[in-house]
């Protein structure tokens, strides 16, 4: 196939991003790409310009693609060559001496600053007065910063997003900055008048003086600007003026070429010009469904759709307009807005929270139970969750306050932008916010890619939400959806329900059978243990166990330690032991040179430092069943003394704990389950922070809590039901366990699972039996209980002669282990 000639006019964020997206989709096989770029650089991130002006970013750091990026990919970049005209009849773009014929043309000409008509803007020679700037390009930035040095007072015309960012940037270079806003409030496109006034107060406290309702009529001074004159006749003396009054799409080139142009170049849902199927427009120069966008997120969405279409990765991709989301990137001000700022529909719900003394103002507009708009000023902690609800049109929780103030024990959420770069986000792997942000800037655009590259969130996982929010923030909302996030395991492209259906339909009883049938035989190391867990739950006794699909702990039924020895925790039902048992344990500790004997948090005894080869012997000498302290399964049921001795005891918690443990020992699950039974509401066994917990209350009854946690996450469990007997505790516990085994994602602890499903729904399903599943759940867990076998019995009859061998000594392979003779 001969390649088509793709010419792109414009190397700004839209043009370059489109090319980048085309490259990523293998489009270089189809196209020879040529770009006209007006600026003599590669491509840079214009939205960070205010950071450059304020000095928080080095100009070099905002380059997305330097010149060699283009060369490496075989892209011709005419840097510093503006396109002069387009000949649509001959399909040629001309710029200076360059003539580039095209088959497909993309116009990404961007926009330019709107310059208000002001008397006295120009000098006699037609140029602007000295000290007058627009704020648009990297060059503008360095010129503004250079000129500001040593001067006293700057004025910014325009109190919109860009004007305020410019003002804050200027404040780092000179002592006095004024913002002149024609409208009655600042950021009037995004903020209602109350929020606008409150923001104004915040800015004034920072030293930015804001003049609203003030129309500028003239610039004063001869060669240099010396002041501004307003409609009221008042005058403001100043040494420099930055104009930030909005943008005008650059459409002259398109208009001259006879393309349909209104405010922008008119395009359809594939970003194609309505009157020429070979010409496309993307970014700020394009007008789509009557809308011209000046923000980065829409431009990226457009670039993606266009690339999908042109690369034929998805020729039918369509752009359907963007939902607008804005953040003011000004040091010391937290502001995020999305969608509508005001409501005039009486059907709308408006939720308002205001705390003027802290400069906090939060407003939500709810329409048809979806988020239609939000203003978050002074506290943007809820922004990243709100923007997702807004983007996806998700139905909202009934308690609207939960949108702004999540209830429960969840700690206050920190907004990513408030964190300093060096703050450690992942405390397991020591990954800082700066490292995560750098990874996003280097091109990682999905959460899993960032986690894989930085290892953030790959330890205990409790920081994963923060990592996600930082990643979302750093990518300006352009996070690619992680397709694998919906898969049960990353290596098999199916969500849990579909995977279960396929496994059942095809009768896949082993992990290798799943890979054989569902991934074309491609085996993924990271998916094996998850599949093994699922298959065991689905097939029970019919599961074809392949030991290589197990984690080492589950192959040798002990917990691997940092020195590759193992820990041995025998089952001590309910934490109740005896002197005879303790003697045996002590003998084993001596015989196998156990280096530490430790009482665990779950009231067990842990023998640490046992070699793999010694495991079968230790088990045999202990003559106690496995305590399953190494696996994703029922672990322990912690108990308090209960009625036998305790003077407060209301229920026999030790007897219940022992019964629980005898019944559920060895029950495997998506993650571990730690239980407790406690004899009175003093809750000495801490049953409210266990995966499942029972608390005796007066009247011979038991409260059953689920979804509690007191590890990396702290959560008080939810009350599932209150029952009258030990048997009922066992019944409801088993029912919940089976439901969790079937419904939870792999490695999802009950505290996440219960929160995700919701306690109301769990009560309806498991107590009220609204889904008519209880009988089946009870039968399934009963079958799993009956299938229990103590895994430590394998010590007497290993499955493979080297099951408990870690290192084969040189002599083991017999006389054959010898240097090969030539």
């Amino acid at each position, binding site marked *: 196939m001969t390649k088509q000639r793709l010419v792109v006019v414009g190397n700004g964020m839209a043009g370059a991003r489109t090319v980048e997206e085309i490259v990523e989709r293998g489009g270089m096989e189809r196209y020879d790409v040529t770009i006209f770029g007006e600026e003599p650089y590669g491509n840079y991130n214009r939205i960070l310009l205010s950071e450059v002006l304020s000095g928080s970013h080095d100009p070099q750091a905002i380059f997305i693609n330097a010149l060699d990026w283009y060369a490496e990919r075989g892209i011709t970049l005419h840097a510093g060559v503006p396109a002069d005209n387009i000949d649509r009849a001959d399909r040629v773009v001309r710029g200076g001496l360059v003539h580039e014929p095209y088959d497909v043309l993309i116009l990404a000409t961007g926009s330019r600053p709107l310059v208000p008509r002001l008397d006295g803007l120009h000098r006699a020679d037609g140029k602007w007065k000295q000290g007058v700037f627009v704020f648009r390009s990297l060059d503008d930035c360095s010129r503004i910063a250079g000129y500001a040095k040593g001067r006293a007072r700057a004025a910014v015309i325009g109190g919109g997003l860009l004007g305020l960012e410019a003002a804050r940037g200027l404040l780092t270079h000179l002592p006095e900055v004024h913002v002149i806003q024609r409208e009655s409030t600042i950021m009037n496109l995004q903020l209602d008048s109350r929020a606008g006034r409150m923001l104004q107060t915040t800015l004034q406290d920072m030293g930015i003086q804001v003049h609203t309702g003030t129309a500028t009529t003239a610039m004063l001074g001869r060669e240099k600007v010396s002041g501004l004159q307003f409609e009221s006749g008042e005058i403001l003396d100043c040494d420099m003026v930055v104009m930030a009054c909005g943008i005008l799409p650059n459409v002259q080139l398109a208009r001259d070429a006879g393309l349909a142009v209104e405010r922008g170049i008119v395009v359809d849902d594939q970003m194609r010009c309505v009157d020429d199927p070979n010409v496309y427009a993307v970014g700020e120069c394009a007008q789509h469904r009557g809308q011209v966008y000046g923000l980065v997120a829409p431009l990226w969405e457009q670039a993606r759709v266009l690339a999908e279409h042109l690369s034929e990765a998805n020729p039918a991709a369509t752009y359907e307009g963007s939902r607008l989301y804005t953040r003011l990137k000004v040091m010391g001000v937290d502001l995020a807005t999305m969608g509508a700022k005001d409501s005039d529909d009486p059907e709308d719900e408006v939720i308002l929270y205001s705390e003027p003394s802290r400069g906090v103002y939060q407003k939500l507009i709810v329409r048809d139970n979806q988020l239609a708009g939000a203003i978050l000023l002074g506290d943007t902690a809820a922004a990243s969750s709100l923007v997702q609800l807004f983007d996806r049109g998700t139905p909202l929780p009934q308690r609207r306050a939960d949108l702004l103030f999540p209830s429960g024990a969840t700690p206050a959420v920190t907004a990513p932008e408030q964190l300093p770069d060096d703050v450690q986000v992942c405390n397991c792997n020591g990954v800082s916010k700066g490292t995560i942000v750098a990874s996003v800037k280097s091109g990682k655009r999905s959460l899993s890619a960032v986690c894989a590259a930085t290892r953030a969130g790959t330890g205990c996982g409790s920081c994963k939400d923060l990592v996600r929010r930082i990643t979302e923030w750093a990518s300006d909302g352009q996070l690619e959806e992680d397709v694998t996030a919906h898969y049960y395991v990353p290596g098999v492209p199916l969500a849990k329900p579909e995977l279960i259906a396929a496994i059942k339909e095809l009768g896949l009883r082993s992990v290798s059978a799943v890979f054989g049938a569902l991934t074309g035989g491609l085996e*993924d190391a*990271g998916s094996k243990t998850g599949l093994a867990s699922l298959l065991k739950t689905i097939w029970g006794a019919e599961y074809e166990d392949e030991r*290589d*699909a197990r984690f080492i702990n589950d192959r040798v039924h002990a917990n691997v330690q940092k020195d590759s020895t193992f820990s041995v925790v025998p089952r001590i039902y309910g934490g109740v032991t005896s002197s005879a048992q303790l003697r045996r344990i002590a003998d084993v500790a001596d015989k196998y040179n156990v280096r530490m004997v430790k009482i665990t948090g779950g009231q067990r005894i842990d023998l640490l430092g046992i070699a793999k080869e010694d495991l079968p012997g230790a088990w045999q000498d202990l003559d106690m069943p496995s305590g399953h302290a190494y696996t994703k399964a029922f672990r322990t049921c912690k108990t308090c003394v209960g009625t036998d001795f305790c003077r407060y005891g209301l229920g026999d918690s030790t007897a219940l704990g022992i019964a629980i443990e005898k019944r559920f020992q060895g029950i495997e699950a998506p993650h571990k389950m730690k239980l407790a039974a406690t004899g009175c509401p003093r809750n000495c066994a801490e049953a409210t922070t266990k995966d499942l917990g029972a608390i005796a209350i007066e009247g011979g009854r038991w409260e059953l809590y689920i979804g509690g946690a007191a590890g990396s996450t702290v959560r008080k469990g939810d009350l599932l039901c209150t029952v009258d007997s030990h048997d009922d505790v066992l019944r409801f516990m088993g029912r919940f366990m089976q439901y969790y085994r079937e419904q939870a994602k792999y490695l999802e602890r009950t505290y996440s699972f219960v929160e995700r499903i919701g306690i109301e729904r769990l009560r309806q399903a498991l107590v009220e039996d609204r889904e008519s599943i209880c009988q089946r759940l009870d039968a399934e867990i009963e079958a799993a209980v009956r299938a229990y076998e103590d895994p430590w019995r394998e010590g007497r009859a290993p499955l493979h002669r080297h099951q408990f061998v870690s290192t084969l000594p040189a002599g083991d*392979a017999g006389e054959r*282990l010898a240097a*090969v003779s030539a």
Partner: protein
Amino acid sequence: MMRVLPNQRQPAAVRSEGAFNLGPPGQIPIGEAREFDLPGQRVAVYHARDGRLYATQASCPHLGGKLADGVVGGAVVICPLHGYRYDLRDGRVLNGACDRLRTFPVWLSTGGDVMVQLEV
């Protein structure tokens, strides 16, 4: 059944010194790995489910985890201690930053035994 795969033919320029016979592949349960204590160093030998064999240094460059205890899938091993993943073909780490594993040529002898070539 055991297949002799192209990447496991005896290296053309095999040197007799440093080549060891480790016995039949069945010593290593299918899909798993075992560590071999060879003169001067320990080597992890992997017996992948597709029949391919790989050999690398025995311990993880991160904190010394025993790679032979790791989960093996395709040509990847996951260290049992902290989950670092390595490509068994070239020893490259696949997540995070860690040194490359040393890898060793491994093949089946004409008698069907696992052969490994150490650096000399």
